[in-house]
């Protein structure tokens, strides 16, 4: 450790302006602060500072994502062997998914961090930790069959156009991970929807009777038929338990509600995720679900409100996406409104608009755009309260 420290200190002069390796300063700094918490001491203001920093915070979000990731790996293998009709034990199933998903994660991090480091160097900044989470979120919201080059293109698009052009972590308007997904969704729709993209088949062919459709698309398809012809459970062929536990096709990290709830527990226990937003998002989703139940114009609308929570990416979005502190509402009151509307629009788009089987992504992106407006009115009400106080007295 001492040797490493000494070596780093020896390299430092070369990275300063005019040094041989100045162009690597930001990248080197990122590695250095990854290895060692710097020896900076307080010079003004409070003499003591909390131990928490952005690295710690982001690391905990990644830890919270791990259950979803690990289950995603298992489920990828599980869906593969289901589709091809083979019976295998736990580890081969897991390793099938591991082999499929690891390259996606690597591509996401290499491309994203590469751009971040380059951008930091151009600006003369330190590399920000924000992408550590984004880089993990992106693989988890993609279908497992997405070609790696598409991942690379969408990551590059989102990091450059959703984040760096606005000034980097802390300045972006939209959630960068969802921008990457939205980019793929509209640029390569055939890779992001339909029934064939959710299960990695390899060179194998599908056995009879396996559809590969997600519960969402089944429900959406059934909604087009007259109500009387729809089979039981609104046309969804999966059991509620499978949908809850996650043994269904879908984006890599979104299927297991158990894994997501473990992640939610980690975020809430460490107080990194905001419970107000999570709670109000779910409330908004349930509210819209009830309204649709009342209308009940087709079979999809009769899906019980609570059942929407275990279908598709609603819960994943509510736990990991809506809670993004940068792109969401920042005031306490704003958070309630923001979360509620995300949930409400998420279910509305999902059920009412047949062109988009999953509404959560679009709903969050729309509300990202409105979050500053919500905050604006909350701030204005605070200002008015202060003014009124002065008027009452005089």
């Amino acid at each position, binding site marked *: *450790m001492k040797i490493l*420290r000494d070596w780093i200190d020896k390299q430092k002069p070369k990275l300063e302006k005019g040094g041989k390796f100045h162009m690597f300063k930001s990248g080197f700094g990122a590695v250095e*602060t990854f*290895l*060692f*918490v*710097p*020896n*900076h*001491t*307080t010079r*003004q*203001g*409070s*003499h*003591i*500072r*909390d*131990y*928490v*920093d*952005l*690295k*710690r*915070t982001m*690391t*905990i979000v990644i830890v919270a994502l791990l259950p979803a990731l690990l289950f995603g790996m298992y489920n990828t293998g599980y869906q593969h062997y289901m589709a091809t009709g083979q019976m295998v034990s736990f580890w081969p199933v897991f390793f099938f998914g591991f082999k499929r998903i690891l390259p996606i994660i690597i591509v996401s991090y290499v491309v994203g961090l590469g751009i971040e480091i380059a951008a930091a160097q151009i600006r003369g900044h*330190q590399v*920000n*930790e*924000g992408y550590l989470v984004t880089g993990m979120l992106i693989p988890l919201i993609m279908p497992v069959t997405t070609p790696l080059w598409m991942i690379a293109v969408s990551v590059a698009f989102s990091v450059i156009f959703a984040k760096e052009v606005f*000034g*980097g*972590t*802390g*300045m972006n308007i939209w959630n960068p991970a969802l921008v990457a997904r939205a980019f793929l969704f509209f640029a390569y729709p055939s890779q992001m929807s339909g029934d064939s993209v959710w299960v990695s088949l390899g060179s194998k062919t599908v056995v009879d009777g396996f559809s590969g459709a997600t519960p969402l698309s089944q429900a959406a398809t059934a909604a087009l038929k007259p109500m009387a012809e729809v089979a039981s459970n609104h046309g969804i062929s999966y059991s509620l338990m499978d949908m809850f536990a996650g043994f269904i096709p879908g984006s890599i990290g979104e299927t297991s509600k158990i894994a997501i709830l473990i992640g939610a527990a980690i975020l809430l*226990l*460490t*107080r*990194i995720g*905001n419970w107000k937003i999570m709670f109000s998002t779910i409330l908004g989703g349930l509210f819209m679900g009830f309204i649709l139940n009342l209308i009940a114009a087709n079979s999809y609308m009769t899906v019980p409100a609570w059942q929407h929570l275990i279908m598709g990416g609603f819960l994943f979005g509510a736990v990991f996406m809506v809670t993004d*502190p*940068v792109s*969401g509402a*920042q*005031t*306490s009151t704003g958070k309630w409104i923001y979360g509620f509307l995300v949930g409400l629009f998420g279910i509305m788009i999902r059920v009412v608009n047949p062109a988009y089987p999953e509404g959560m992504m679009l709903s969050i992106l729309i509300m990202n755009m409105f979050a500053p407006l919500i905050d604006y009115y909350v*701030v204005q009400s*605070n*200002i008015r*309260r*202060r*003014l009124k*106080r*002065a008027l009452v*007295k005089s």
Partner: protein
Amino acid sequence: MSNVIKLKKGLDIPIKGEPADILENIPMPETFAIKPADFQGLVPKLRVKVGDKVKGGTALFVDKYLPEIQYVSPVSGEVVAINRGERRKILEVVVKADQDNLSEDFPKADPKELSDGDIKGELLRSGLWPAIKSRPYGIVAKPADQPKAIFISCFDSSPLAPDFDFVFKDESEAWQTGINALKKLTSGKIYLGLSVKKENIIFAKTEGVEINYFDGPHPSGNVGIQIHAILPLNKGEIVWTLQPQGVIMIGRLFLTGKYDASRIIALVGSEVKDPRYYQFWMGGCLCGLLKTKLSKQKGRVISGNVLTGTTSGSEDFLGFYDNMVSVIPEGNYYEMFGWALPGFDKYSPSRTFFSWLRSGRNKYVFNSNTHGEERAFVLTDEYDKVLPMDILPVYLLKAILVNDIEAMEQLGIYEVIEEDLALCEYVCTSKINVQSIVRKGINSMIKELG
């Protein structure tokens, strides 16, 4: 206890080194210094030069723009140095004490029988006027102002703060005399903020004031928080604030006719051997005390508390407003994977370290490391949890950063000074220097609006 105001937001930092209720007498320090930096926004104009003989209460420098406000020597002796920093800014005027401790003579009087003009005159002449600060801005009060009220917080809730019940237990006469003098300076009331957790031996008996009780963690003892809860400050209004120490010094002046700089201080912190109270003097050099009372010789000596106190270079002098000295270890070390370790011994209000599993009674050693690099604002809600005010701190700070005077005004710049947002700075994940941003905002308000 009638008016109890409960504040939920805030944080009591569990830091090691609380003072024991023991008072120790020590010899008087050899040198004393008055630091212009203790008084926000002051431009000093010297009244003495090196070699001049001074007494306690002799002006060392005055306010360049309000020369009637004098800043005086705490003791009698000889001016031995005027230390300057960059651009010849005066850092401190150092007085070498003779052992006579003589004071200028001021008339003894019962403030009840004096007019407000007499009282102002005596406070200005004696150099005790700077004990009165004005809100907004937390600067030394302007004698011409008419404050709508005077606020005094009778407890200090900051980390390791001295217990005022212990420190002031023998000062009840000076206290009441000081209050009587201050009563003449405002047409409004004097508001005292008391803690429900203390006995308030001398404070609860104060006559001629309105008493409110506060219950809650730090910063409930900050006078700014108390003003916000009792009588919020609006644009164009002025209130004055004092610390109990200042009231007592004013009281002593009228009782004895002498300038008396003595005060009891607490020497606290994890680097202090047996933290306790000492009979000390305002402006006194801490060198003698530190030489014998620290467990190790290396550490950061802070005049004041760990959140808002100040450090000076080689020699440390007790600040004008301070009645505590904190000593914590320096944090100038590298820690391998420090951000990733479980951190059972790293206290953090954020719960991101496992120390939250330990008992709440556990005390920790805090050092001066920033524990990370500065970043943009990312997390939300952090500041709101430790600021018991109806103010949106991040929006106020952003308004200051873009120097938007109107927005600062609307978002509450008149109601805060640095110390009120010190906890925000402590908890900040992005390591933003909140207090210097607040001061920057206050300075541009003073510049723009006067």
